[in-house]
């Protein structure tokens, strides 16, 4: 990164009208090898990502495995320290907070994980799992805590009398409801949903998606919704960002993205989804090859090695991520003029 760019990040003034702002975020994981375990390179999991989330909206992040969407989410919660870049929550620089300040901020942001089987401790009852956050943050205890947990179970559509049951006594969909109840316990403003329905059966997915939408309306929640299933992301999101090899390649409103995709990767991703309509005839864009290794991403535009439109410039220069109008951002040399 050049000096000018670094100064730009330092001088950046956080926006006042957004809940979360992510600015030029990078996470490079060192890769070690050889007999002395010296550093032989970096996995550039997240490599310069900027976006914001407005209060009360749902921002979807899509992309294939290894594109950096989960790492981005974890850095917003500061479960992962960034290599570079900033995250602002309500205007506060998250990475400059000390332990105590961070602890207070954590009440505002929660996460729901993908796998409802491994994200709940099998030795704890539902009451302990959901009430744990209330205990840690000293919100309530005894009867009051129990009452609050029962209230939360009721809100997510579980029987409040099941408070002393263990996770294995619930089905996958019910466990995901427990995960949602746990995330809601401290009345957060932001919930990061990391693939919350991809481990669930089709008929159960719709239960959880509807629940998330109801809760958003009721508690004015803001979601960062991370998923690889584009149909699900379109359904739940107001705006959607598409990631490829650690970078955002396109970001705009959900309707705009699906009616007018600009980036060739977005186009290919959308044409690859099998649609549940056997009578639909359409042209498929089949991408050749696999996603390149994030340890050694292609030069210039990361996508140029698989892009059907690639030209000489794409291999030489990284395209800027710019607004083509109506807050439709795209990072492509060929599709910047709309």
């Amino acid at each position: 990164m050049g000096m000018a760019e670094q100064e730009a990040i330092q001088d950046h003034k956080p926006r006042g009208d957004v809940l979360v702002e992510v600015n030029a975020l990078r996470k490079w994981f060192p890769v070690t090898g050889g007999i002395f375990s010296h550093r032989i390179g970096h996995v550039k999991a997240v490599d310069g990502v900027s976006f914001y989330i407005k209060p009360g909206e749902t921002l979807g992040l899509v992309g294939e495995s290894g594109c950096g969407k989960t790492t981005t989410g974890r850095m917003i919660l500061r479960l992962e320290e960034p290599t570079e870049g900033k995250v602002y929550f309500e205007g506060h620089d998250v990475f400059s907070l000390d332990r105590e300040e961070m602890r207070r901020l954590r009440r505002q942001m929660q996460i729901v994980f993908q796998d409802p089987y491994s994200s709940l401790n099998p030795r704890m009852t539902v009451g302990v799992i959901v009430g744990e956050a209330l205990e840690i943050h000293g919100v309530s205890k005894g009867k009051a805590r129990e009452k609050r947990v029962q209230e939360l179970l009721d809100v997510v559509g579980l029987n409040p009398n099941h408070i002393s049951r263990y996770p294995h006594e619930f089905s996958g969909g019910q466990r995901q409801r427990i995960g949602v109840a746990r995330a809601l316990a401290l009345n957060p403003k932001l919930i990061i949903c990391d693939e919350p329905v991809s481990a669930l059966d089709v008929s159960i997915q719709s239960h959880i998606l509807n629940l998330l939408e109801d809760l958003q309306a009721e508690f004015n929640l803001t979601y960062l919704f991370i998923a690889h299933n584009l149909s699900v992301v379109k359904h739940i999101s107001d705006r959607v960002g598409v990631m490829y090899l650690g970078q955002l390649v396109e970001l705009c409103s959900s309707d705009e993205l699906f009616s007018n995709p600009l980036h060739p990767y977005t186009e290919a991703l959308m044409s690859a989804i099998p649609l549940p309509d056997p009578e639909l005839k359409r042209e498929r864009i089949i991408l050749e090859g696999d996603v390149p290794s994030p340890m050694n991403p292609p030069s210039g535009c990361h996508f140029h090695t698989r892009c059907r439109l690639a030209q000489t410039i794409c291999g030489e220069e990284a395209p800027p991520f710019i607004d083509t109008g109506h807050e439709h951002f795209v990072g492509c040399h060929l599709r910047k003029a709309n």
Partner: protein
Amino acid sequence: MKRLVELKDLKTHFFTDEGVVKAVDGVSFHIGRGETLGVVGESGCGKSVTALSILRLFPSPPGKIVGGDILFEGKSILRKTEAEMRDLRGDHIAMIFQEPMTSLNPVFTCGDQIAEAIEVHQGLSRKEALEKAVDMLRLVGIPLPERRIHEYPHQLSGGMRQRVMIGMALSCNPKLLMADEPTTALDVTIQAQILELMKKLKGELGMAIMLITHDLGVIAEMAQRVVVMYAGKVVEEADVVSLFRKPLHPYSEGLLNSIPRLNRPKGRLHVIPGYVPNPVNLPPGCRFGPRCAYVEDMCREKEPELVDIGGGRLVSCWVRAGGRREEVA
């Protein structure tokens, strides 16, 4: 279309400490030569056990086929000896699984694993088998196959591994390929590559495919005919266009309505209330009854049978005309 495989009232039960799990409980359908049959259903509906029953590969004990029959080219599979079954597996019927990493042996090279199958089933020498393995990898679209046969599974990406699995499965020209969630573990652009590949190879080799998946999009794209399973039973069978235009069984209808669609306006998703029943303790009458919006008294008392209502459509439901046999007859 001549029938390649026919299941007649197949019952595969598992005898566990908690009770008898009727994983497959009276399943009948057939697969024609060169046809792609889709089998849809959610986890625990018995679709994988049905496929494993055809190969007699389910864990036994506790599993046991307690009733019905499976015919392959008109002959009962259940009466075959273990040696005859070995000839059938791989040679005539091949299977690929969801997670290619767990179905490939990590300590042998890809070439060794494909060549082994060819040696065993076609009696070729090691050298000839390895040459054939290279051909198979080329057929499934793996670049530089001469080099790849010397690589181990962990050196390949998920999509490449699934291609190796398909190459191995097709190496003996099977008449039936059973694919159990072949693309579920893959990314969507890689899934598109694998589905394209399966379509292309099916056209070239003329085999039948039994495609098991919970993804209705994949079914719509690949299958000609579809069997919908619920709690160990077939609840509906139809050609793919009719099923997606007008599903008859309330469960099929609910499934199709509950998925978010790219080409439909937003709104609340349809929800099938409740959960899949416990297989040890199934509800009386229709197994879908407790979750069904159209349930009637009859449904709670007597289990409906799968009834042919004409036009290649079969449905097992008292309400949707099917179940009342006497009225249809």
